[in-house]
């Protein structure tokens, strides 16, 4: 106990160096823990981009392009599938629900997804989170849109405002559908998934804006149909990009995948999103490892700072050590004193790091979700984080043994007080 008391009072007497050392360890710990949260959050955001959807079915092609296109809205499908096929999928006895999506247009760089109202009741993102509306709701009117939280925040859009779609998916488009604006009727809550960066319009809307187009080209001005006329019409959907499917029994997933992959009327690809996303993330695992590596090096730098601090203080404290030995403190006590000091420094630093992590996560989480679409959980500390915390403590104490050993040796070789 006296050892810890002495170590504590000694550190307090060198409060500036002690504070800087503790701060350095705290920041290293915070970085390590936040990187771990980002890693877990990135994985969760990626793998959880879609949840409770058992199959994604699209026209024949690679499963990866289908996944990237339908879930992450990256790229465009090479070909579409027939809407009639969707109806068959929907009518299948094993299908619980089926939601069609159509991709193709965009708005200021954000992808526009044509879908049915069922999308909002069945599609789930991270951790089986159902889509909920922060403001407004979905409408059954043709020229209406629901926008993701990120779109609303970045573009400062509100319910009741209008947006015009652009043909194609680039930020710069050669054709804008400005004559057919969409009324924003709802803004979704953040999900930490691509939904936040998407605009959802009715399937009819995707057909309506291209109703007077011929062979992929816009009509001449005099042939164009006004938005008012289009709004009153009903539209037949011919093609869609993909279908999200939920099955009634999880045991049927593989059967259904085989069934639709070998569908005779139309060549299709069916992927199980959970498995495919996991595989894809594993393939990108080097990024995760790189993150970890950077964080570990940061911690090493922090601990080295502590080592340097304790080591440097030794020179100033030879007299103190000598006094203690003159009073009967054995070399083991001197060793223990410096080890206790290292333990207090690293323990204090790591604990402060835990606290800082908590504060950072609490304060920055909403901004990170909005800006980066990355959902960092605010759960209590995970077992991995507690393992990191323990490893930092153990490493710090082990590193502290280096100056402690030097002090132990010094006190033996130098003797005491004669040259004080």
């Amino acid at each position: 106990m006296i050892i810890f008391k002495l170590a504590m009072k000694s550190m307090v007497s060198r409060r500036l160096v002690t504070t800087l050392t503790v701060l350095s360890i705290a920041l290293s710990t915070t970085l390590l823990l936040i990187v771990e949260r980002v890693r877990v959050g990135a994985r969760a955001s990626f793998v959880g981009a879609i949840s409770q959807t058992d199959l994604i079915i699209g026209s024949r092609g690679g499963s990866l392009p289908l996944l990237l296109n339908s879930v992450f809205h990256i790229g465009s499908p090479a070909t579409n599938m027939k809407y009639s096929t969707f109806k068959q999928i929907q009518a299948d006895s094993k299908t619980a629900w089926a939601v069609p999506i159509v991709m193709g247009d965009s708005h200021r760089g954000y992808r526009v997804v044509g879908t049915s109202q069922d999308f909002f009741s069945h599609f789930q993102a991270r951790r089986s989170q159902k889509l909920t509306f922060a403001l407004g709701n979905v409408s059954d009117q043709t020229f209406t849109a629901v926008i993701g939280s990120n779109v609303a925040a970045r573009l400062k859009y509100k319910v009741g405002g209008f947006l015009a779609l652009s043909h194609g998916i680039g930020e710069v488009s050669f054709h804008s559908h400005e004559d057919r604006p969409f009324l924003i009727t709802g803004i979704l809550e953040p999900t930490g998934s691509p939904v936040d960066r998407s605009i959802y319009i009715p399937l009819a809307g995707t057909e309506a804006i291209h109703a007077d187009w011929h062979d992929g080209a816009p009509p001449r001005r005099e042939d164009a149909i006004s938005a008012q006329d289009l709004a009153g019409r009903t539209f037949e959907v011919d093609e869609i990009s993909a279908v999200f499917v939920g099955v009634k029994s999880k045991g049927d997933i593989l059967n259904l995948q085989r069934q639709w992959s070998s569908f005779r009327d139309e060549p299709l690809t069916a992927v199980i999103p959970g498995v495919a996303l996991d595989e894809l993330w594993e393939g990108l695992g080097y990024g995760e490892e790189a993150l970890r590596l950077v964080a570990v090096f940061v911690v090493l730098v922090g601990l080295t700072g502590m080592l340097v601090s304790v080591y440097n203080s030794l020179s100033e404290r030879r007299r103190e050590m000598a006094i203690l030995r003159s009073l009967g403190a054995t070399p083991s006590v001197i060793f223990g004193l410096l080890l206790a000091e290292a333990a207090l420094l690293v323990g204090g630093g790591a604990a402060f790091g835990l606290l800082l992590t908590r504060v950072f996560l609490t304060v920055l989480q909403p901004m990170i979700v909005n800006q980066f679409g990355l959902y960092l959980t605010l759960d209590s500390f995970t077992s991995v984080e507690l393992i990191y915390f323990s490893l930092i403590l153990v490493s710090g104490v082990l590193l502290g043994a280096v100056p402690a050993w030097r002090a132990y040796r010094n006190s033996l070789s130098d003797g005491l007080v004669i040259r004080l």
Partner: protein
Amino acid sequence: MDRESPAVLINALRFSYSKERAILDIPKLTIERGERVFVHGPSGCGKTTLLGIIAGILDPQGSQVLIHGSDLAKMRPRQRDVFRGSQIGYIFQMFNLIPYLNVLDNITLPCFVSPARRDRLGSTSPIKAAGEIASKLDIQHLLNKMISELSVGEQQRVAAARALLGAPALLIADEPTSALDGNHRDEFISLLNSVADESQATVLFVSHDLSLSRHFGRQISLPGLNVVNMISAEVSL
């Protein structure tokens, strides 16, 4: 520990920091228990070295150095540390107080690093014992002050209190009065001896100021280079 043996018994001590010359060459030196011994000599004559050897701080280099019958030469460094903590109170020339501890913590420190010192207090707590000894040295009002707030004279008394707490059998004082003027020197030595009397401690006091010798029962001279004969001559008195 042998209760009949002298406080200090040195036989054939030859000590050197280098191979060229011995700084101390003492055929025999005996200091009985309870004696008040004054060791004097000019700077560099080996006074502090002799104290360092008696206190087990310096290795006796194979010579026989018995403190209360225990041979320091046969002890390992760690054992010497424990023995010193238990049996010897040391007042340093520069006091060597720990600056980040307050007066009370400095005084009680030996009891926390040496269980034997603590045990000798019996049921009295180190804090209470420190208070009592501080009262005797007239520093009881300074117990909660930091060392940097004290005058030299006050620091000296704190160093003495630390050395005396737990009643060590041998009290070694290495020129503790060098920073004081004449009146304060006499006053301090009288105080030290009276407190040491209560615990029946042997006192070994070093100074180059021969005028202080009147406070002590015996004096040993260590004049510079001609150590051997003078030590022998003085010891044989």
